[in-house]
């Protein structure tokens, strides 16, 4: 008899600048059903209070490198949401 095992992926999400202000924190942990992508994490963030005010297109970095929404998440990953850059 087949047994369904639900595994989860736990990632750390970092929020900066206007996004940290919007969601009221600068870091949080997300538990997502495996397999999970960056898009799944973003969808979860949008369901947080005021998360629906995040812009439709988000710049993301996974373990310090920019990635697209389809990037696959692994437990222990660090996912950062980057507001429009404004250095200099």
């Amino acid at each position, binding site marked *: 008899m087949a047994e369904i095992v639900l595994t989860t992926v736990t990632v750390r999400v970092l929020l900066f*600048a206007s996004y940290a202000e919007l969601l009221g924190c600068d870091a949080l942990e997300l538990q997502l059903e495996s397999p999970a992508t960056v898009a799944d994490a973003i969808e979860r963030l949008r369901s947080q209070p005021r998360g629906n005010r995040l812009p439709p297109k988000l710049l993301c970095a996974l373990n310090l490198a920019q990635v697209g929404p389809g990037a696959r998440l692994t437990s222990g990953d660090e996912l950062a949401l980057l507001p429009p850059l404004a250095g200099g």
Partner: protein
Amino acid sequence: MSSPCSRHLPVVEPMFLTRNPIELEALLSEVQDPTRGGIASFLGTVRDHHGGRGVVRLEYSAYGPMAEAECARIVTEAKSRWDCGVALRHRIGTLEVGEAAVAVVAAASHREAAFAACRYVIEEVKRRVPIWKQEFFADGTVEWVGSEGSGSPLRGEAR
């Protein structure tokens, strides 16, 4: 924010980001060399106005480890493309009007390469490095630069 730490990520010693005032002389001494006769420098300082409104100070924040890595990549690119020495600093924290937020010094055999490398580094820093700034206006409002609609109205709502 507290330093983000996860098991995948290397611990990076800050090299390019600083909370202390930027000393141009220190950057010059990093790249000066008898073989390099042309030195170009760029300083980006806090301006007292934006969009016709008075600015009293800026507050810079960064995604430290990624900003360091991206600065290192930009400097490496410039060095190999123009065969030059490059020094780069970006300030984080609260800066008053007139203070230097970013400094680039490029030293090459001749001025053409020095100017080109210096220009490349500052443009790429602005385009690629995860740094953000909040503008504090003379009228008391506060806005995130580049994030329309998520500045002072939100802040007002939170209080």
